[in-house]
């Protein structure tokens, strides 16, 4: 089993709140993603069993929603907005700066498995551009200095937890 008892409980509680159980598919994917950090077919099978809906319905829905990585990513998933409002305030250079700082290209993960860097569409932080999301947190009005600070802080956090 990949899904924890807590995740399964969350999924079941969600199913009770909708007129149809299928409506809980997206909340179930979200709960699984929050626990595991990504989604894959083994997880879809478990969700399908918990929810008693066909596997294909879970897999089909999951494949549509880009917020859930479909393979393992680093402990910190850095998502930099590359849409228009952020681009007008240096998003291209922000991405280049993080790439050089971490020594990886877009789509890659650092060898210590700490950071994965991707670029994404508008995150609704346009008035505080350029911005990025790392796991659940928004970081806005970014500058080089701020990026340095954030990365250092996450490294420390990871170090304290024993990597």
């Amino acid at each position: 089993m990949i899904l924890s008892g807590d995740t399964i409980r969350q999924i079941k509680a969600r199913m009770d709140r909708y007129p149809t159980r299928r409506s809980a598919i997206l909340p179930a994917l979200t709960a699984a993603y929050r626990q595991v950090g990504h989604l894959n077919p083994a997880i879809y099978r478990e969700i399908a069993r918990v929810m008693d809906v066909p596997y294909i319905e879970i897999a089909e829905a999951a494949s549509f929603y880009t917020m859930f990585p479909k393979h393992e990513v680093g402990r910190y998933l850095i998502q930099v907005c590359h849409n228009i409002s952020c681009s007008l305030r240096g998003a291209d250079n922000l991405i280049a700066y993080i790439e050089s700082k971490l020594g990886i290209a877009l789509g890659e993960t650092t060898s210590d498995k700490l950071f994965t860097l991707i670029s994404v569409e508008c995150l609704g932080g346009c008035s505080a551009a350029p911005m990025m999301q790392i796991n659940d947190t928004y970081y806005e009005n970014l500058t080089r200095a701020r990026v340095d600070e954030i990365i250092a802080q996450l490294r420390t956090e990871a170090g304290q937890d024993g990597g």
Partner: protein
Amino acid sequence: MEKVLFAHVDNPQQHRIETYLAAGGYQALPKILREYKPDDVIDLIKKSGLRGRGGAGFPAGMKWSFVPKTSPKPKYLCCNADESEPGTCKDRVLMESDPHLVVEGIIIAAYAIQAHQAFIYIRGEFVFPAARMEQAVEEAYARGYLGKNILGSGYDLDLVVHTGGGAYICGEETALLSSLEGDRGLSRIRPPFPAIEGLYGCPTVVNNVETLANVPLIVNRGVDWFRSHGTEKSPGTKIFSLSGNIKRPGNYEVDLGTPLSYIINELGGGVPDGRTLKAIIPGGSSTPLLLPHQIDTPLDFESVAQAGSMLGSGAIIVIDDGACMVWTAMKLINFYQHESCGKCTPCREGTAWLKQLINRIEDGNGRPGDIDLILDICGNIMGRTICPLGDAAVMPTESIIKLFRNEFEYHIEHKTCLVKTSYPLA
């Protein structure tokens, strides 16, 4: 200018129900349940002239009145908090700073259409705003504003906070419903309109966060007060998200009909020093561009349409002379191609072709005839798709080419930009 929706935006405790109550919150709801029949609420909102703030500006009261009263089916209300139109970041602020205003608006709207189940569909990335809304919903249940027999009125309503999975299309109302049903977020052909056949095949109203947040204010302060803001046809205030090349970006609430120049120059401080204004996207990335000489355009639905664009979601994106317009068009079309749900051919294939052509021009590989080919493809998408995402891709693309064709021609001929885009990271 009086702030109405943002009256308490600077109070860091406003999200707590005690603070909301102390500031006069949850006074509209008991009044409605005591004194108004559902139809009276619809009448009130019709008279107020409140128009949808999600993009299309459809009159809210009229939308509610389309829900068939005699239908034996359950009815649903969905608050659209998907907020994914590039440039738009206002609903997030409302949900974070004054979530109970949104919840109270949802309850009143649900009562008006006699729904007993409502949903807030929040984009999945909005973890913090969603947590704020969850907390507000829990507090509202605990105080009897939600649940069975609300305030002893006999009216029942359940409200579920539902989070999405990162798809712009799920802000489109029919795709939102597909997504809420557990499917891929594919849009659906209208008619039937959601008011007749929406969620689970039942009558459903979808309204934007900001639209619903206006409702308690209208109930509390009256139609005349509401109409004292804004214009005859576009009454009320509007939150504008100001972004791009501007000194003071931010979310600003002003009366509808306020000149664009006031927001850009007075509130936003103008473009950065040493730059000049090149173009303005007035209503979110899906709307045609305006030029500097149109900066005095009043921001109401009619005036912006007259100027050749749309008020849309009220996201003003300011572009200065540091931007290559081929690059700008590329940023936009890459987005629409990525977000097309893929259900209908003109949008799925059309946005992919547009992306390919615009990227090849930007990369210095454009060919003679590419510009006309782009316009031809645009013409074959516009108005031929299941939902307006196709139109949303075409409108800014066509507009940029029409206004800045010389930059595209230069790119094709010289294989490089007329204006080299340069926006450094501070």
